[in-house]
């Protein structure tokens, strides 16, 4: 069954007839958002903006500066500065009155409906929205844990890790080896590891042309595979060796002290080892008790948790169906969630959900590709409706336009999240 206008008018009528929940103190309903990325930043901004002061919105985010994972590969490739992918939260406070608290959420009490921060503060909520991104599964790559991320960076949470990986690549010896351990499905940003390989190849081709790139991949295929393989053959012939599941790419261990990588029983010395482990929902989702396995299942209509109707989970951390884990997806989910949460708290109109995603990737300078889809809410999941993907053999002008389009998108989505 798909959600249609009639069903949502019904839902909206229900919301109108139900009393809005009022928190103690301010007299306004309170929404607490945990995580200030593409999901959390967007949902906080939309609820505050559209409710025009009728809802108290608090955003909990430990970092003062958000470095976007999307476009961080372009920083590694030397095409963007670190400042260009960094964003602050001041405008959310100044423009919309959002209470931005830079702290860690460490506990959720779903009975008394409050969130405890590392600093000891306890925040009551009427609606809680979790958008904590990902954590890594320790032990998923034998020999690797967070204590060795300075030797073998993941760079899959952008910022200092991105800077570390870029520095390591710049300092590789002539003819050295960059290795990547790619993650198993599902994971954040499906084309991300392969865009990164492209950007590393772009750097090495110019600065260290005898170097080699090795990818150990537990998957038999990957996002935009034909496009990347065609681009790698065109721009970086002989530089990249992809070892997929069929050739033992999933049988991997690392020794950070010796800078050794073992693939399918064969040891190799590496100069840079970019380990991107298996992923799960950010820890606070598990602490809140809304996960089932690695992720937090949600209802497709409004992103509410299948465990608790007053808790919502957005972005990479949720298990929703067909949407890829991407910043675009999180932003799209946040808007549906914001409309539903505002409606349930203030009686404003609730419209049918609609979701979309587009992922751009850069293979080489001015060689951009993209994949996208629209989605609808069914009873079972968020289901794919329609889509497109760039084609092998497109002309150079189209690829350049696609890259420039991605830069325009970046400016728009970050404004949509933070301004």
């Amino acid at each position, binding site marked *: 069954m798909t959600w249609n206008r009639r069903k949502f008018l019904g839902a909206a009528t229900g919301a109108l007839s139900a009393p809005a929940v009022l928190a103690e103190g301010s007299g306004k309903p309170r929404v607490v958002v945990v995580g200030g990325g593409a999901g959390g930043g967007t949902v906080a901004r*939309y609820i505050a903006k*559209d409710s025009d002061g009728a809802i108290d919105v608090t955003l909990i985010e430990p970092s003062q500066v958000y470095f976007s994972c999307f476009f961080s590969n372009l920083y590694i490739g030397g095409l963007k500065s670190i400042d260009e992918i960094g964003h602050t939260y001041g405008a959310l406070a100044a423009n919309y009155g959002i209470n931005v608290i830079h702290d860690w959420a460490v506990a959720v009490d779903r009975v008394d409906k409050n969130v405890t921060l590392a600093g000891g503060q306890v925040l009551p909520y009427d609606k809680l929205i979790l958008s904590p991104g990902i954590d890594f599964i320790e032990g998923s790559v034998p020999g690797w844990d967070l204590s060795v991320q300075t030797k073998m960076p993941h760079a899959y949470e952008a910022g200092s890790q991105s800077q570390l990986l870029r520095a390591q690549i710049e300092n590789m010896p002539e003819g050295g080896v960059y290795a990547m351990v790619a993650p198993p499905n599902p994971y954040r940003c499906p084309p991300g590891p392969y865009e990164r390989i492209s950007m590393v190849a772009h750097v090495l081709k110019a600065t260290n042309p005898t170097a080699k790139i090795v990818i150990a991949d537990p998957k038999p295929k990957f996002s935009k595979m034909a496009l990347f393989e065609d681009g790698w053959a065109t721009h970086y012939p002989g530089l990249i060796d992809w070892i997929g599941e069929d050739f033992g790419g999933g049988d991997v261990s690392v020794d950070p002290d010796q800078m050794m990588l073992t693939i399918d029983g064969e040891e190799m010395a590496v100069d840079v080892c970019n380990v991107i482990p298996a992923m799960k929902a950010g820890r606070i989702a598990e602490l809140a008790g809304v996960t089932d396995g690695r992720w937090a299942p949600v209802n497709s209509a409004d992103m509410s948790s299948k465990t608790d109707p007053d808790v919502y989970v957005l972005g990479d951390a949720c298990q929703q169906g067909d949407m890829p884990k991407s910043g*675009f997806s999180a*932003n*799209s989910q946040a*808007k549906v969630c914001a*409309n539903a949460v505002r409606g349930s708290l203030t009686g404003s*109109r609730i*419209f049918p959900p*609609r979701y*979309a995603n*587009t992922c751009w990737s850069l293979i080489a300078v001015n060689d951009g590709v*993209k994949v*996208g*889809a*629209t989605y609808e809410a069914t009873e079972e999941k968020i289901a794919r*409706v*329609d*889509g*497109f993907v760039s084609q092998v053999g497109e002309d150079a002008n189209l690829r350049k*336009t696609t890259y*420039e*389009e991605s*830069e*325009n*998108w970046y*400016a*728009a*989505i970050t*404004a*949509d999240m933070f301004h």
Partner: protein
Amino acid sequence: MMPTKVAVLIMRGICKRWALKDCGSKVRKAMLAICACFGILPVAGARAEAKDGDVELGAYLSAECVTCHQVNAQTEEIPQIAGLDPNAFMAAMQAYKAKQREHPIMQMMAGRLNDEEIVALAAYFSTLE
């Protein structure tokens, strides 16, 4: 009819016509302001269809657009939508929907909008300057 009433009617006609013309934002804003003084809503002509749109629905739907189209900034490859002529906006969306205009993302996004939703979007964007 009193001469003052005649004058008001003439002024209304002039302002309404100019407010709807593509005559530069300063002139148009001035005419809109004069229209407001006379209690005139300049929704005839080019805005006839958009005026029937559900602005609140349009605002909700527009959230999808602004992921790529900045509200207040023009970029090279992705144009600003706010302030577009409503008829031009609706024609463009129908052309993408019918795949008569090229762009895979826009064809996909417009492809699932029904006529009511396109009018609602036009109505909403026409409220933005």
